[in-house]
């Protein structure tokens, strides 16, 4: 991208759009891949797509996180041909509760939490949202809450794993010129060139 004459505000905006589109594409890929892997229980998944929601949250803020997570659920369901099926509502409810929870703790705690803590909260929110949706739509019996503690235990570890991967990704991305202020980035390019 040799466009030093471009207005830095416009450049930042365009970069943000390009990166968010890439994040959504990667999130959809991870989501679809995980869903296609065999598993009899719709909710036992690692949730790797959440890495991209976390990256959007840390790099661009809450609205970007919503964009990535909702677009991921919508596009993923379209690709899998299960838009508005029970599985779709489970995924949507999980994503909505998880994203709300992650944005709230990120805003409240800020730097006191690494992506691992935010991801763990998101994973717990995801479990809660999914069980709520499953209670209402699939197994209309209060006994479904019996699996919540075990399910939560699993999601804590998957949340730590995705949070850790997100932390690694963020560390790499922040070294990339596109994530430094525009003027600095152009300077560093000039220095390299």
């Amino acid at each position, binding site marked *: 991208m040799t466009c030093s004459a471009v207005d830095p505000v416009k450049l930042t905006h365009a970069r943000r759009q390009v990166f968010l589109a890439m994040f959504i594409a990667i999130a959809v890929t991870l989501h679809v891949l995980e869903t296609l892997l*065999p*598993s*009899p*229980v*719709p909710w*036992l998944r690692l949730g790797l797509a959440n890495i991209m929601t976390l990256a959007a949250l840390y790099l661009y803020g809450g609205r970007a996180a919503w964009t990535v997570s909702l677009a991921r659920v919508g596009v993923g369901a379209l690709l899998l041909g299960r838009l508005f099926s029970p599985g779709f509502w489970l995924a949507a409810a999980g994503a909505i509760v998880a994203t709300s929870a992650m944005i709230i*703790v990120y805003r409240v*705690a800020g730097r*006191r*939490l*690494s*992506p*691992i*803590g935010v991801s*763990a*909260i998101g994973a*717990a929110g995801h479990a809660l949202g999914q069980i709520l949706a499953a209670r209402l739509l699939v*197994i209309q*019996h*209060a*006994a*479904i*809450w*019996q*699996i*919540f*503690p*075990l399910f*939560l*235990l699993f999601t*804590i570890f998957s949340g*730590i794993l995705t*949070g*850790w991967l997100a*932390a*690694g990704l963020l*560390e790499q991305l922040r070294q990339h010129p596109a994530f430094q202020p525009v003027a600095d980035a152009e300077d560093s390019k000039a220095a390299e060139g």
Partner: protein
Amino acid sequence: MKTPWQVMTGGDWLIVICLLGISLSGIAWLATAPGGTRVVVTSGGQTVFSAPLDLPQSVDLDGPLGPTHLVIDDQGVRITDSPCRAKICISMGPARHTGDLLACVPNRILVRIDSPAGGEEPYDLLSR
């Protein structure tokens, strides 16, 4: 890449420990719940099998994929064989407390333990 322990802050640990506490206390609480007396198996919303928990027996229950083998013994009720692919229902182990649930989602088999009164169990985890 840093290890998770290098990345985690004090706040992260607090969150993880709290969540672990909620999860483990939930599991412990469920484990101490009173023992139920009846095994009820439903498939697609209909009761297909019901038996007392203190009468050892084994039974085959037909689901869409084939027979799911259920064993009732002194440990409770467990699924010992099922035509599903991942066998999660088998790995769920035995159930014996009121409200316990074994589910084989692919084969549409839902096994639960009911209290003597039958019907809904006396509590659910939403109560405050």
